């Protein structure tokens, strides 16, 4: 065994103690009763919360789609700039992330409220007040705002690798801009799209504080549901673990579906 392998040991220990053992604990909790007996009731109880789970997936999917639509053109344009402008652009994208996540979401509260900044400005020109906060739209907005950098960064890092001569070659061979995009840029940026979608969708589907702050507490998501099991009135870590387990399975499935797309597209790219 080479000595270099030992360098990985600290992380390995870390992972076993803080990732693998807790995951096993979730598994154990999900399948036991408070007295320690085996049960699958917790898992079947999760079915009662289908509404909440579907809503989380739906809102997270919308947020991911919006992030992709906003992030893709920006990442492409940025990747065609000079190295210096790229650096500045990336820094501007990262800038909001230097602030606390909570603070950023709190700021949206003061913007969206009935007596908030947006409604007051609109009121001055005789519009409104509109019901902006405490809606599912506000939750999606919060997710897009907070997770957009996670979409742009992987997209950008893949797109800078697309050599401009490839695009020029396509143009030389008579491809229009639509064709260049669909035959060259899109297939080559596919890995970035899939990792961007994963990076946005996974945290979005399990978020809990955004829905509490911007959704008015009535747009419950899976994260809130899990939070309620551990810090709520009933203290039911068994059901909480079961919901977490279901959430993990959902995320895993979504990721595996994404990966399939990714690979098959690469195959096509290779075939072309």
């Amino acid at each position, binding site marked *: 065994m080479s000595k270099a392998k030992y360098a990985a040991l600290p992380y390995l220990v870390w992972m076993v103690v803080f990732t693998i053992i807790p995951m096993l604990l979730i598994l154990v909790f999900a399948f036991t009763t408070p007295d320690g007996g085996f049960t699958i009731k917790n898992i079947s109880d999760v079915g009662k919360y289908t509404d909440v789970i*579907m809503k989380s997936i739906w809102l997270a999917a919308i947020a991911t789609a919006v992030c992709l639509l906003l992030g893709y053109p920006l990442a492409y344009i940025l990747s065609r700039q000079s190295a210096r402008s790229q650096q500045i652009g990336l820094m501007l994208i990262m800038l909001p992330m230097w602030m606390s996540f909570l603070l950023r979401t709190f700021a949206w509260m003061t913007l969206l409220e*009935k*007596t908030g900044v947006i409604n007051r400005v609109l009121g001055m020109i005789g519009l409104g007040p509109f019901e902006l906060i405490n809606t599912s739209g506000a939750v999606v907005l919060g997710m897009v705002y907070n997770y957009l950098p996670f979409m742009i960064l992987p997209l950008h890092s893949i797109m800078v690798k697309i050599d401009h001569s490839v695009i020029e070659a396509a143009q030389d061979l008579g491809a229009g801009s639509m064709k260049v995009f669909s035959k060259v840029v899109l297939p080559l940026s596919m890995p970035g799209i899939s990792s961007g979608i994963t990076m946005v969708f996974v945290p979005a589907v399990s978020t809990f504080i955004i829905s*509490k702050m911007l959704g008015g507490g009535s747009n419950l998501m899976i994260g809130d549901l899990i939070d309620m099991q551990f810090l709520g*009135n*009933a203290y039911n*870590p068994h059901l909480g673990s079961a919901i977490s387990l279901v959430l993990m399975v959902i995320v895993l*499935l979504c990721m*595996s579906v994404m990966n*399939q797309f990714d690979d098959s597209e690469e195959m096509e790219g290779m075939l072309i």
Partner: protein
Amino acid sequence: MKRKKLLCALAACLLALIPFNAFAAGEDGEYDMAYYGQFAGQNASINVFNWGEYISDGSDGALDVNKAFEELTGIKVNYSTFATNEELYSKLKGGGAQYDVIIPSDYMIARMIAEDMLEELDFESIPAFENIDEQYRNPEYDPENRYSVPYTWGTVGIIYNIGTVEEPVDSWSILWDEQYRGDILMFSNSRDAFGLTQKLLGYSLNTEDHDELRAACEKLKDQKPLVQAYVMDEIFDKMLSGEAAIAPYYAGDYLIMAEDNEDLRFSIPKEGTNLFVDAVCIPKGAAHKAAAELYINFLCEPRVAADNIEYIGYSTPNKAAFELLDEEVQNDPVCYPPPEVLENTEPFLALSPETSLLLDSLWTEVLSTDKGYNKWIMPVFVVVAVGFSIGINLARRYRKKKDSPY
């Protein structure tokens, strides 16, 4: 049941810069040093776990309770805070943390007693317990008064803004009034939300009758379209700025809000309400029980308790401390309601585990009731996704086979 005073926090930060020397209560002559001095020089320490913003901490020139205790006894106080009773419970249940003094609310104390999580107090070494008003001894949550010493109490009522609500408020039913659609805030914790609904419907706060709970759940669902948001801490901002006009909340917190917005009023509905008591306890297995009892005794000292309650804004169960308060505060009907109002109150008691579970699932139902998805959607989704993955893999393998001759 103490919540963060967001606005006060800023003021507190500024005022903390001013050196405070108002340490009247720290003069040694006032206390029995044979008693308080027993741990001096032994390098002892205790871990105190309390609600956020729930002790006089020396800001605003007020008494710094922990510091005064440290100087008096030489026992170091490691102070940390929690936000809900349930958080405290899960921390203790998890077993990871060691605390010597905790301050849960009534129903949580009853539950902890039932689950053998509290240490019996040695009242011989808490002589200042005699200051506690008879009325608050032997409470329902601790019938023989063996585990707890009352710290504060208060009521839940309706806070409203007279700018929007012109009629007199005397019933919980105003929270269901169509007229105030979008101006109503509601508790985001299940026990309080269900509690006031149960009162409105004429049920007990501690009902174990599942039909009554279901009826309350339906009532809360009816209310949902009118509710602007389900909140706890955020209530301060929303009521102060006029974002919302009506909210049920704790009396002590109303007093803090009223300082900043004079349009706010408080009313205890005629259907009755919840009277809560937060009390000091020692959790099972506490490492420094004797020192913790010294701390509890210190909290019961009249001067300390009076300064403390003045800062917190809640009501004190300490008779000797009450007598030290300003007459204005003593006669405040919000802080110390007249006896006929107090008679019409009920404390929260511990619910049976089944009822607790039902309450939580009903509450989730209230919060998530919008669309009825079929419960088979999830299993179908899983099957389809797995099928899709396998399908693509098979297709790819097939294609690879086709490609391999090249």
